[in-house]
């Protein structure tokens, strides 16, 4: 299993541009998450999904959109990028089978908005 994969690894955007961060997991997990990590800080939840077609906001959703058309994929869309969105973005997934809620994280996408 590749686990959770993210593309791209790095990206530089100009203010006002848009882009989509890709996330795919091959563990057949029903739950998927997007977090952002600002320098020197812990991660904060942007959006999450409990299954295909179902998404909900996390702690810091403004400026982002998500969709979940398949179990495997959970893309994050940035519209009208702003410098405040400069951050490292992590995608994660988890399963609720059994009693474990352990989350598994991808390698991250480092985004700079200038």
């Amino acid at each position, binding site marked *: 299993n590749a686990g959770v994969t993210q593309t791209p690894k790095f990206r530089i955007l100009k203010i006002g541009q848009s882009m989509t961060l890709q996330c795919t997991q091959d563990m057949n997990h029903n*739950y998927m998450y997007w977090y952002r990590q600002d320098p020197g800080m*812990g991660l904060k939840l942007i959006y999450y999904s409990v299954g295909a077609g179902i998404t*909900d906001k996390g702690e810091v959703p403004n400026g982002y959109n998500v969709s979940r058309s398949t179990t495997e994929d959970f893309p994050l869309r940035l519209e009208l990028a702003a410098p405040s969105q400069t951050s490292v973005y992590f995608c994660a997934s988890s399963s609720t089978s059994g009693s474990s809620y*352990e989350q598994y*994280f991808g390698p991250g996408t480092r985004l700079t908005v200038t």
Partner: protein
Amino acid sequence: GIQVEQSPPDLILQEGANSTLRCNFSDSVNNLQWFHQNPWGQLINLFYIPSGTKQNGRLSATTVATERYSLLYISSSQTTDSGVYFCAVGRVYNQGEKLIFGQGTELSVKP
């Protein structure tokens, strides 16, 4: 919401020394995970430990859920242990489960 506090914020060790990192949380949780973020930014799962004690090589962790804290023990530290250690806790809501991260403990192991 749940508050997560980690201590100490920074720690410098000589190679071979032992250390204990602490995570306090403000409410009951279903999930507690410890992560190591290496200098390249990768998040590595260390333990899933909502309660009890686990060991993996030189690392072990204990969570006392009733007293709302968890401890991560690193023995015989190595330079490769350097990085930031995060504690994250979660509760299962009607839909989904959200992890709340602490601010991390930055560990530097000197040769």
